[in-house]
């Protein structure tokens, strides 16, 4: 109990911790929400660029106030300076990318290092006027956050967040499909500038907490974590905000326990959080992916199982199937699960094919026999026919089989004299192919008779001793064998 108290509650009684938690959370949440759009627009590098470039502005702001007004370390001027330098950088990046063949990514690389370098030179040349702790900018100091920084980030965050929420729809469409957005009269470029402005603001206010190097992490890591979990931008932003908050919370505890730098601990926690989600995410996670692959049953095995079940007239157990199809028990379980999910089989211990499963089995049988016929025609010796056809039957694309069948001249039987089941690529089949349909409604797909049975009728067909009787709308119509042979039907799904 005591240790738990020292670990979790004790820090919460410290003012500095609470301040860091409050200030950090505000910034992290807004960073994360903004970051969603940043990563979707592939601008991650821009966040990095802005944070570095602002050093020049901080130096310039400091110097300006000191030389002109003699004021030391004027926080406001440094803030304005950093914004100005951020905007200049963004403008130069766009300018170079536009007027030359240099692409945007290279342009970012040129401009931000240039502006950053200017800042470094400025600070070192005027070292005797400027008393800036560069380390502070590089590492940030979330645990020693000043009241001024806190107020500024609160205001900036509120402003940026309201802009994003108010114009959410427009940010969404301009990021997803700028061409379409322009065609309905949305000022795409304006939104791009507004958004870049928002990113600059939020980056500048976050630097004081986590520092130049880590700020880009705060911008994109929680957003990327959320991206692994959802397919909707709204949800992604909400989740990102949550992850932004937990990064700060977890990071701060970590820094207290390990007695480490706050910014580092926060980003370390955010990264671990990302890796955990990357592993465990239900859809886009590695574990789920691995599981999916492991549980996958090859189509070939599925088809062999269906064929073996079709051979047996009564329900079968696992062991009956494994006599014909060789596989591990685990794959057997997965295969049966798949068959049942797909509605091809039913049962718990003893399994049975459903109507859909039996139609599928017939289709496979047809594929096998059509291939055999074809191979025979090609001069393959009879002794090899079955084996070769067994491999080829898995190439059972419906249309292709029907095509080969047609080219073979619609033979009734295969070379061994076995009947080729009359099932067709549209899912229909001839009644003589399948027994046990008498208790089910079927739809007539094709029929050749002058009796009152037409394509599209939903009927029930019963095999009687002296022929076939069709029950339709309460009445009964008798059909001859040859009429039934020329007729195809389909189960209602």
């Amino acid at each position, binding site marked *: 109990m005591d240790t738990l108290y020292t670990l979790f509650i004790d820090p919460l009684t410290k003012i500095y911790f609470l301040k860091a938690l409050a200030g950090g959370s505000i910034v992290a949440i807004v960073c994360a929400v903004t970051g969603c759009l940043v990563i*979707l627009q592939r601008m991650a590098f821009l966040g990095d660029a802005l944070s570095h470039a602002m050093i020049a502005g901080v130096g310039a702001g400091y110097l300006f106030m000191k030389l002109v007004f003699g004021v030391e370390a004027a926080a406001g001027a440094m803030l304005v300076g950093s914004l100005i330098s951020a905007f200049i950088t963004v403008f130069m990046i766009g300018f170079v990318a536009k007027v030359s063949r240099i692409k945007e990514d290279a342009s970012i690389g040129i401009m931000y290092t240039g502006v950053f370098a200017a800042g470094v030179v400025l600070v070192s040349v005027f070292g005797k006027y400027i008393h800036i702790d560069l380390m502070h900018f590089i590492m940030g100091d979330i645990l020693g956050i000043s009241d001024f920084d806190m107020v500024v980030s609160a205001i900036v965050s509120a402003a940026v967040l309201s802009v994003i929420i*108010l*114009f959410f*729809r*427009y940010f*969404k*469409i301009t*990021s*997803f*499909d700028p*061409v*379409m*957005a*322009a*065609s*309905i*009269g*949305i000022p795409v470029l304006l939104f791009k500038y507004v958004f870049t402005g928002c990113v600059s603001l939020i980056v500048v206010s976050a630097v004081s907490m986590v520092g130049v190097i880590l700020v880009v992490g705060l911008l994109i890591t929680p957003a990327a974590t959320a*991206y692994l979990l*959802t*397919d*909707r*931008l709204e*949800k*992604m932003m909400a989740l990102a905000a949550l992850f932004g908050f937990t990064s700060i919370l977890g990071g701060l505890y970590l820094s207290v326990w390990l007695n480490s730098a706050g910014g580092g601990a926060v980003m370390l926690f955010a990264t671990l959080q990302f890796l955990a989600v990357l592993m465990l995410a239900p859809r886009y996670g590695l574990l789920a992916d691995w599981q999916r692959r492991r549980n996958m049953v090859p189509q070939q095995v599925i088809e062999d199982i269906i064929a073996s079940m079709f051979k047996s007239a009564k329900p079968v157990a696992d062991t009956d199937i494994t006599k014909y199809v060789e596989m591990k028990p685990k794959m057997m379980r997965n295969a049966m699960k798949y068959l049942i999910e797909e509605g091809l089989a039913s049962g718990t211990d003893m399994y049975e094919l459903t109507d859909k499963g039996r139609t599928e089995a017939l289709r496979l049988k047809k594929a096998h026999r059509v291939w055999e016929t074809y191979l025979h025609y090609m001069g393959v010796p009879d002794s090899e026919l079955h084996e070769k056809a067994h491999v080829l039957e898995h190439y059972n694309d419906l249309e292709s089989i029907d095509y080969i069948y047609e080219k073979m001249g619609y033979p009734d039987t295969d070379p061994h004299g076995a009947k080729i089941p009359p099932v067709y690529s549209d899912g229909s089949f001839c009644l003589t192919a399948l027994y046990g349909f008498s208790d089910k409604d079927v739809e007539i797909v094709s029929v050749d008779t002058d009796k009152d049975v037409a394509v599209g009728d939903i009927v029930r067909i019963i095999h009687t001793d002296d022929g076939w009787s069709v029950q339709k709308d309460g009445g009964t119509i008798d059909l001859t064998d040859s009429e039934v042979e020329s007729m195809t039907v389909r189960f209602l799904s």
Partner: protein
Amino acid sequence: MVSSDYAIQVRNLTVSYGPKPALLDVSFMIQKGELVGIIGPNGAGKSTLMKAMLGFVKRDIGEVLVFGKPVEQTRGMIAYVPQRGTVDWDFPVTVADVAMMGRYGHLGWWRNPSKADVEIVDKCLEMVRMSDFKKRQIGQLSGGQQQRVFMARALAQGAQILLLDEPFAGVDAATESAILDVLAEAKKAGITLVVVHHDLATASEYFDKLLLVKQRLYAAGPPDLVFRQELLSEVYEGRLKVFTDLLKG
């Protein structure tokens, strides 16, 4: 004649990306409610012509009028389905989200989509037979399905003019007939349709009027006027045999 009887008027249009113009001195008029096909070989400037009708490309000279007004002043009157979507297919939006974007132009700055908007979107998805995929992320569809979602979005825009750049490219027979149904329905609703089409075999059957383009406009009018041996052989050099067959059949 009042100029706004025409949905689109293009006059002396020339567009160039480099030294050689992609379109040269193209002029034609499209009446309201017509179903017009644009045909021509690869690189003929068909897509460029579409973009010019939308005001997306810079014109060297010439003008484009939409319902009698310069195209620049008519944003939102034309809905467009591009040849290849340039969107990010991994973007976290669903089919329904994308279709709803068609309504954004009508929503005003702050208003959320109303029930009526949702109904329109549902109807449009129904028309292109994509209702079963509403919750699917846009990247997790086949190319033909994605094309249909973008068509639904264009329909949802409620625009009077619909431009489709090769909607029939790479789709199966079922999708093709679904798209044809959509075109027929849109035409019935009085919408003017301009469609870039590649398949000469079906062009005369699908469209009221054809524009034969290869940098210049070679012919414009009803299919039997455009499908003339000497025109086609000039535009599609070297592939004469196909056309002789076509003209006979």
